[in-house]
């Protein structure tokens, strides 16, 4: 054997270690469904917030959201999150079963924990803002923290999660700059981008 072969051995070892520690069964379909749920949720919230007001650059300074409306919005958000999570679990479970893998193993545990750290941080951050009645930053921050969570989780899975995360962060930052149109950026990020990346992942990794 020559040293070239030893080098190939080492790089192959590294490759296999890398691949084998990633959760493979994340399904593109769950991204598509999460996007659809998000769009429906955003549309419902839009009807609540803009029933009496029109969206504009400065509306967020004067907009009044009543307690009942806020409760409805939070309820819609919770429903969207739960439905998206159920879709994520169901389709990953289905894909894992097809590939004879376990859904709950070391790789998926690592993935989930690293996804949840930025996400739960953001969740509390946003809940405290809502409690202080600072609503304008809610939509941008959900985008930014979710994006960071995706980037962090992407080290433990395959696919486009990293690019989805970076896209979300950029949309989140843009929506801080264009404050007042947060809901539209939110719908674009969580709705449209989820569907687009979900489709990309579905056709690249799932269909076989």
């Amino acid at each position, binding site marked *: 054997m020559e040293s070239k072969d030893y080098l190939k051995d080492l790089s192959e*070892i590294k490759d*296999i270690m890398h691949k084998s520690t990633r959760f493979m069964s994340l399904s593109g379909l769950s991204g598509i469904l999460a996007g659809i749920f998000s769009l429906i949720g955003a549309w419902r919230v839009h009807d609540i917030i803009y029933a009496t007001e029109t969206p504009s650059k400065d509306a967020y300074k004067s907009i009044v959201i009543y307690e009942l409306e806020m409760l409805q919005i939070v309820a819609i958000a919770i429903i969207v999150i739960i439905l998206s999570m159920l879709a994520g679990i169901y389709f990953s479970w289905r894909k894992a079963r097809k590939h004879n893998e376990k859904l709950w193993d070391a790789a998926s545990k690592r993935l989930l924990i690293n996804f949840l750290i930025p996400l739960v941080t953001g969740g509390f951050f946003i809940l405290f803002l809502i409690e202080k009645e600072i609503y304008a930053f809610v939509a941008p921050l959900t985008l930014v923290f979710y994006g960071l969570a995706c980037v962090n989780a992407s080290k433990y899975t395959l696919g486009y999660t990293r690019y989805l995360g970076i896209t979300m962060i950029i949309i989140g930052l843009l929506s801080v700059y264009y404050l007042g149109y947060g809901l539209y950026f939110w719908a674009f990020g969580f709705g449209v981008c989820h569907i687009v990346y979900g489709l990309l992942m579905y056709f690249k990794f799932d269909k076989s």
Partner: protein
Amino acid sequence: MSILSKLNKAFDHRVRLGIMSVLMVNEYADFRTLKDLLEVTDGNLASHIKALEKVDYIKVEKQFIARKPNTQYSATKLGQEAFKKHIDALEHLINKH
């Protein structure tokens, strides 16, 4: 010759190296996972697993998941140490050239 002799004969095949690589970074792996990761046939993988099992580098545990038999493999302490030594020897050889 002294460096070459440090290269472990048990790892003298890319499939065996592959099996050990997976089991170094994962607590467990089953047959199917190993097969998919290493892209080898059932018979090929089974024979290399047997070879590593024989020198006590990996451990085999049979269990049932949803009434289907499932075999989990893990690296033994001996196997982990041998693998580390083998990697060190490989790196040493490359640096020498």
